[in-house]
């Protein structure tokens, strides 16, 4: 079983890294022929960085749109970030100080994450408009994330797994030295679901994460009168 999971994680990591990198390169290379920032927009690059930061850290636009979605979505994402950072302790030896520091917050963030996900999922059933736009994969994605949260919390708070052995496994994995993985139901479930999420990432709506950086309505400065913006394919039209 250790070998199966080792293989699974090598595959999932490769798909995640290569898949997302390819998408990013693709977004990067695709020209944006016209300046289309949603105005009012910052007039400088520094301003754009600030706008993007507010968007990423506080979900500024979503806040303007709908407080329920904002609260649930923000709760989920911030909790997820804490949980992911907390998990760095299983990949580092010795554990970095700041990772050790966030450990207690990260543990309870697991519950907040699950609560956020549950709320977001409830909306897909309860709100008619959102029910209308939800696809089967929207539900599956929530199920997957909730499954990850639930199996993780299970190991932490219900049936402890041999976490030291798990850490040995992952430290070994990073050095291509396969160590035994504890034979443990919740652990198998947790790891399988995480691998599935990594595999799905480059092919799914999870691309909103890299996508937001490339959104012209958000990442362009509002300076069209001061500077001439011309894409390569549009410039060719002038040569004709």
């Amino acid at each position, binding site marked *: 079983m250790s070998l199966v999971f080792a293989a699974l994680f090598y595959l999932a990591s490769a798909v995640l890294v290569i898949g997302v990198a390819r998408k990013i390169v*693709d*977004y990067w290379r*695709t*020209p*944006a*022929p*016209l*300046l*289309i920032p*949603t*105005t*009012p*927009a*910052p*007039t400088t690059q520094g301003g754009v960085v600030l706008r993007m930061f507010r*968007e990423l850290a506080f*979900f500024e*636009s*979503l806040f*303007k*749109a*709908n407080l329920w*979605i904002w609260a649930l*979505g923000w709760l989920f994402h911030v909790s997820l970030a804490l949980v992911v950072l907390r998990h760095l302790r299983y990949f580092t030896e010795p554990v970095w100080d700041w990772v050790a520091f966030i450990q207690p917050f990260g543990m309870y963030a697991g519950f907040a994450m699950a609560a956020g996900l549950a709320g977001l999922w409830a*909306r897909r059933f309860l*709100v*008619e*408009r959102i029910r*209308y*736009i939800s*696809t*089967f*994969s*929207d539900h*599956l994605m929530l199920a997957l994330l909730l499954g990850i949260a639930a199996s993780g919390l299970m190991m932490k708070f219900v049936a402890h797994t041999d976490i030291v052995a798990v850490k040995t496994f992952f430290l070994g994995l990073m050095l291509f030295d396969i160590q035994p993985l504890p034979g443990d139901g919740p652990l198998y479930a947790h790891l399988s679901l995480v691998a599935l999420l990594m595999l*799905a990432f480059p*092919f*799914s*709506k999870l*691309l*909103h994460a890299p*996508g*937001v950086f*490339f*959104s*012209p*309505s*958000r990442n362009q400065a*509002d300076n*069209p*009168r*001061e*500077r*001439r*913006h*011309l894409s390569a394919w*549009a*410039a060719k*039209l*002038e040569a004709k």
Partner: protein
Amino acid sequence: MAGPDPKAPALREYFPAIPALQPGAMAGAKSYVANDKIQESLGFPGQLAESWQDTHDAVIAKMGDLLGKQRAFKVYMDACVHCGACTDKCHYFIGTNDPKNMPVARQDLMRSVYRRYFTLPGKLFPKLVGARDLTSEVLDEWYTYYNQCSECRRCSVFCPYGIDTAEITMAGREMLDSVGYGQKYSNEIIAKVHKIGNNLGLPGPALTNTLEGLEEDVKEDTGIDVRYPLDVQGAEVLFVTPSADFFAEPHIESLIGYGKVFHAAGISWTLSTKASEAGNFGMFIGNYDQLRKIALRVREAALELGVKRIVVGECGHAWRVAYSFWNTLTGIGAGADDPFAIQLQSQLDHRYKQPMHICELTWDLIGQGAISFDKEANDHRIITFHDSCNVARGSRMGDSPGGQFEIPRNIIRAVANHYVEMAPGTTHEQTFCCGGGGGLLTDDLLDLRIKGALPRMETLQQVVDSHGVNFMATICAICKAQFTKVVPYYGFKMSMIGGVHQLVSTAIRLGDK
């Protein structure tokens, strides 16, 4: 449209209430399709191919082409998570209750096909991810619902990834045009602009007549010789305005106002026969070539007339094109280092913004004390201001972000004593579209236009009730035309609608300067 006369929906008692869905409510509101003559004059196929397979392949090829050329389209196809933030933001959804008029659902009409042909899960498990084959029914659905979007960008304000449905609508219309399935209204207008020089098809002699008549009217009215010059070589300012300003009511009142501002400030200016249209429907149909070709007329006119400045009249999408796109398309602007753009930019006077909005010009003159007003002349009016969508969310005025909101309001306050804001959340960048923008200002979509105006009519009703507002000023030719047409359905008078420079015109002091 055959059938009963369209009626306005009832104003909602507690808005913003979210309407219950009525699937298919607007499935029948289909704008007229362009005939082969119109299509071919723009270089598009005259009609759909005989075999569906050919059309199918051409659409998918075009989609691939756009995905490679337009970053916005590509990113927006991938990034949506169906969070629902946009679902209640579109005025057409609010007015029609048709779920396919929710921005995300409108995008999904396209996204479902994108996923089927361009993503792995869509190829392998279409049902799972909501992917579907492109069929002729899907193409009809695109035609129907991409011609029920006014490209106003309100949804893009609220999307956490900034997904702009307008970009997807434009891509959709571009794909439809490319296979011979264009919309009559927009494409007919583009054909006219190429053939005659403006959207309304006013030939040069008619334009001359109109402007001479205008000079006589103003003389009669004020006793002053205000000029409305055409094709004057060596004028300082080339003034480009929507052609509706030349004869439509209330548009012409603003044209009179522009002339008075130039007169009072002593600025030499000219209109141009060649560029007798600021509007650019190339943007509406998402076609870069048309967008560029139409914009190039202004460049040519500027070079021919040798002007130092280019100023744009009251028109929403035209100002977006001028402000955001002209430098890219034609070199009208500053900061270029390529020969094409330098040819024009070295001619322009860069002490002034290029291009400049008429409101920027008027406000600058007010700031300098170069023009003055009898504000009492507007005392019979209690005024509110409708932010036009393309100005609000696709452009700017002045030096800092948000100038497009402040400057027109500042002008109104400088020329009139009674000004009232409409409800927050429905003005500034969150303004509602008038319901007729983006190539939908056609009688075959009248029902949609009336319903799409609902949210604006509700907020207008509020200030009418609370403050006795009797004038809604706006700086867009389409807003003016749309509102004068639809406000009677809501029980308002057409004469309530007018331009900011109509108010300027009423109050400006002439002659003694």
